[in-house]
């Protein structure tokens, strides 16, 4: 092919790729670098210091930041309960639909994708009366918010698990296990879950990342989590808010790295 021909859909050249990546990188990097830089500033016009980082974790300030750390704890509780909801309700449902009711797959997919199209504010308007009942049944503990989060993470968790389900012959494997004497629990525990490990872990980490970054629902339902606490603390101490935002970003970044690593481990194994 001559060099002056332009193919539609051709990969961009090295230069074009570098420019695109550089622009995208700058767009993402500038606010994050600014955030990190700000967390080390000693004043609006002053030099740099570790004081803000040290004071956040200093024992004498424990009382000051007690609410803040409690909110972080709340977010972790929510993340764990939401992951549990995904694993206990969504995962078995998806496996059941895949094996026994394949005709329902489209319906399940549609239901699971809906939350991505519904703005959080709309969800809250609908959830507010529901939560008046939830509080009566389960009490007002923070973990009950996980029911709402379980809905918001559906699209992400569904996609991760479904991709893994499509990649292995679930029906054949479960039938083979059944013919070898395995009951349904053994089929799930000993055959399907080990082969769905990547999808399940990816769904779990994405769920954690989404829950740790959630603000709207918690704020509008008057619950305290990491993000609502960040907003509150930023009004009195912007450095603490910046530090916690950096830490939350770092955690999400690590989770995404782990997800990526899981994917590449699986690929390497299958290429052996």
């Amino acid at each position, binding site marked *: 092919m001559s060099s002056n021909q332009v193919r539609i859909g051709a990969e961009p050249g090295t230069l074009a790729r570098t420019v695109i990546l550089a622009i995208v990188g700058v767009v993402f990097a500038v606010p994050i670098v600014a955030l990190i830089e700000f967390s080390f500033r000693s004043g609006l016009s002053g030099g740099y210091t570790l004081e803000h980082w040290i004071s956040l974790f200093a024992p004498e300030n424990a009382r000051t930041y007690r609410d803040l750390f409690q909110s972080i704890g709340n977010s972790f509780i929510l993340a764990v309960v939401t992951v549990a909801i995904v694993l206990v309700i969504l995962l078995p449902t998806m496996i059941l639909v895949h094996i026994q009711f394949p005709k329902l797959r489209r319906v399940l997919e549609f239901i699971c994708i809906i939350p991505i199209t519904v703005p959080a504010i709309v969800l809250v308007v609908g959830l507010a009366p529901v939560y008046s009942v939830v509080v009566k049944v389960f009490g007002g503990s923070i973990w009950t918010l996980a029911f709402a989060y379980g809905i918001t993470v559906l699209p992400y968790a569904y996609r991760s698990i479904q991709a893994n389900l499509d990649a292995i012959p679930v029906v054949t494997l479960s039938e083979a296990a059944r*013919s070898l004497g*395995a009951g349904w629990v053994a089929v799930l525990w000993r*055959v399907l879950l080990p082969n769905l490990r990547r999808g399940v872990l990816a769904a779990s980490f994405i769920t954690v990342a989404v829950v740790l970054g959630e603000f709207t629902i918690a704020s509008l339902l008057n619950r305290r989590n990491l993000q609502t606490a960040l907003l509150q603390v930023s009004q009195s101490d912007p450095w603490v808010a910046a530090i916690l935002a950096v830490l939350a970003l770092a955690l999400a970044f690590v989770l995404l790295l782990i997800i990526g690593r899981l994917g590449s481990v699986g690929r390497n194994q299958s290429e052996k």
Partner: protein
Amino acid sequence: MTTTVTNSIPIARASAPSLAGNSGAQVVLSGVIKNFGAHRALDGIDLSIKPGELVALLGPSGCGKTTALRALSGLESIDGGSILIDGEDVAGVPTNKRDMGMVFQSYSLFPHLTVLENVEFGLRMRKVRVNERQPRAVEALEMVGLGRMASRYAHQLSGGQQQRVALARALVTRPRVLLLDEPLSALDAKVRVQLRDEIRRIQTDLGITTVFVTHDQEEALAVADRVAVMKDGAIEQIGTPEELYTTPSSAFVADFVGLSNRVPAVVDGGVVVVHGKKLPLLGELLADGNVTAYVRPEDIALERAGIPATVVASSFLGSLRRTQVRLADDSLLSIQHDVDTRPQPGDPVFLRLKGAAVSAVPRH
């Protein structure tokens, strides 16, 4: 019919007496019915399998052979009839309690387990102790010639090796019945023939009652004690390979098992008249009238005089030769004859019907 014999790859010879501990169950299917919505997949299947017998279920796609096997295994529930294993009705018994070994058409090894762990799986489910489990799994692997592959994973094995491991995995628990659902169809021709022979050898060694589903008539005739030819959810005929080939009970069986020429003919007083030659009629008596007769290629001979024809093509098949000829009415016939006769395309030849009995169906 051709018989292919290829055995260049060494196969395991060790028979495994300890694996033969629980073999030879009698299987009886009586009036088994299975519906998928409005479609009746099994229409009153009656089948009795003797202990230690290998029965092949043979038929075209959609005839219900796999459904029959899955009903036997418990993977499909049945809507009527009974399934007896050694006199025990297992129709309501779940798959995992039926004590049957099964090998599937698609590769079904557990990808996260090694070959040895795959074979141990059934024993683990039966809570067999570790010190007994491992030797039995190794023994089963050696039986299929894969003792050295114990630590490998499924993706490190060829298709044929995977199916052998699946066979070892199905047999290691000493099941009452072995069910094979087209286990060779994903393999290439050479491996298929080799593994087919190996399955037959192991089945004979262990004396395990076996049901083998296939759409390949050559495979069924080569491996089975008896073959059940299925059509539209029912068994059309069951018999030894020789019986099916020489005395098909219907035109469908004659057409499906082995090669047949469909020749316009007339039934006259209970005999079939084909090109002026009177041939005995197989199967049910037909009323006088026009029919299509099914004449085997080996029942037609090339002669110096007889029915005139012109050679279209001739193929060398090793121990015999098959020649296609065109008759004066423009119809084509296949003839099987010795390899020393080498007709060339365009050669005028004469045919003679040897007089073997034929199947026929009315022609409208």
